[in-house]
């Protein structure tokens, strides 16, 4: 084969050209997607602050995103707190540092685990549902129908979901914090033989306001990301069932990745 290429330099040139074209096309397409997403986020965010608001729709989203996510977030937090207590106890006994279990559980749950795991669980439950619902509305021309009826779809469809997502996730995480710490408490008291009073006192001593607050701020950012990704991918869904399916997948995957990336950035901002 090298002999053939050597004999045909035009072939090499056209091959290099086509590779460069492919790379250029991919970069252009990526930048275009970033531009479209940025414009979408800008338009949607503006509509969250400009009247008219739809209180009934916002309330409905509060219930859909917040109330109905409570069981899944609660269960996740409970078992995460329980596992964390078990694992940290197992590790800390090697250094005779068992007394640090309460602090590790409290800090890990409030700073990282509750917001990140709640964000990921809500991305799976709510992000997918938003993308599927709005995607179906796109495919069946219901979004076009909104426009022809003089209703701004950004205000009517997107803003209530983004407002509810951003406000409800911190509340979910606050509840998750309590349940997660309680999970650690249960294992520590009934399984590992800790004293109840000591465990509570250690948890209370180590926790600072910023530990909880940073988790809640992260949760608000994650709520914004989850709802925005669900809306964006649903709103720009392709045709047919496959288009809606793809939009749903993209909504969950992109929200999950963005949660993990933004978690690192926010941790750096809050604690470095």
């Amino acid at each position, binding site marked *: 084969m090298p002999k053939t290429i050597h004999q045909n330099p035009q072939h090499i040139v056209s091959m290099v050209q086509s590779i460069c074209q492919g790379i250029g096309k991919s970069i252009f397409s990526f930048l275009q997607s970033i531009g479209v997403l940025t414009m979408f986020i800008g338009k949607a965010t503006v509509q969250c602050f400009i009247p008219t608001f739809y209180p009934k729709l916002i309330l409905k989203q509060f219930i859909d995103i917040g109330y109905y996510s409570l069981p899944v977030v609660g269960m996740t937090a409970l078992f995460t707190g329980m596992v964390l207590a078990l694992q940290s106890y197992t590790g800390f006994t090697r250094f005779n540092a068992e007394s640090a279990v309460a602090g590790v559980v409290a800090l890990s749950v409030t700073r990282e685990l509750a917001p990140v795991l709640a964000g990921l669980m809500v991305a799976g439950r709510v992000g997918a549902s938003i993308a599927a619902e709005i995607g179906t509305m796109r495919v*069946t021309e219901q979004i076009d*129908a909104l*426009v*022809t*009826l*003089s209703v701004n779809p950004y205000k*009517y469809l997107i803003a209530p979901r983004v407002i509810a997502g951003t406000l409800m996730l911190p509340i979910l995480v606050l509840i998750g914090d309590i349940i997660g710490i309680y999970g650690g408490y249960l294992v520590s008291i009934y399984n590992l033989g800790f004293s109840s009073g000591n465990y509570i006192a250690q948890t209370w001593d180590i926790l600072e306001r910023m530990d909880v607050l940073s988790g809640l701020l992260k949760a608000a950012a994650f709520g914004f990301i989850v709802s925005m990704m669900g809306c964006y991918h649903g709103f720009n869904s392709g045709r047919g069932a496959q288009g809606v399916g793809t939009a749903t997948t993209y909504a969950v995957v992109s929200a999950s990745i963005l949660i993990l990336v933004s978690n690192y950035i926010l941790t750096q901002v809050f604690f470095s």
Partner: protein
Amino acid sequence: MSTPKIEMRNVKKSFGSKTVLDGIDLSVNKGESMVIIGGSGTGKSVTLKCVLGLMQADSGSIKIDGVETKDLDTKDHDALMSKFGMLFQGGALFDSMKVWENISFGLVQGKKMARDEAHDIAIEKLKQVGLAAQTGDMFPAELSGGMQKRVSLARAIATSPEIIFFDEPTTGLDPIMADVINDLIKNCVTDLGATALTITHDMCSARKIADKVAMLYDGKIIWDGPVADLYDSGNSYVEQFIHGRAEGPITKHAAFKA
């Protein structure tokens, strides 16, 4: 001569390398019912969406009541939309709302009318399209295809629009129901004194509801004239299309190319 209600001049629209509209020129006068005919994939829906502002044309001019629709600010765009009513091909009813809420949606959300008043109008419009008042409390998923079309028509006329667009109004309906819908469209448009722009490939529908017909082929309007002249157009493309002949200047290849 009065200003046309809808005026398209040299409107072009491409998707990537595929040119869908290649210089559309079309005028619809006030109170006129214009039907655009053409094969599948010839750009009928794109034409309609460009006029409605749901899609941006690449170039050319689209005027409503003599006002250029491109670059309108939000307020003017909303004012323009309040002149429009639209019957979508699939109905596009909001499945989370009851039928009466669907019909009154434009009144409540667009025109800020009180719900009670809008409810009364919705029931009146339901009756106008031949449906019982009780239908108003049902959800769209509980209705047959024909009933959904009627509800969609009721929603399109609820705000008493000046211009009504019909996207394939009889597609997916049996011949009798299609004729019922055609009659309803004709009556509603006449009662409102509205201008109508319909796209269809159903020739029965075109004959019944059109004052004028335009044929779209290869991204251009290749013939337009009064419906009475349709069967005497002298245009081989139009004749092949309206008679549904496989043989003629419109080939499968050309149809897909468009």
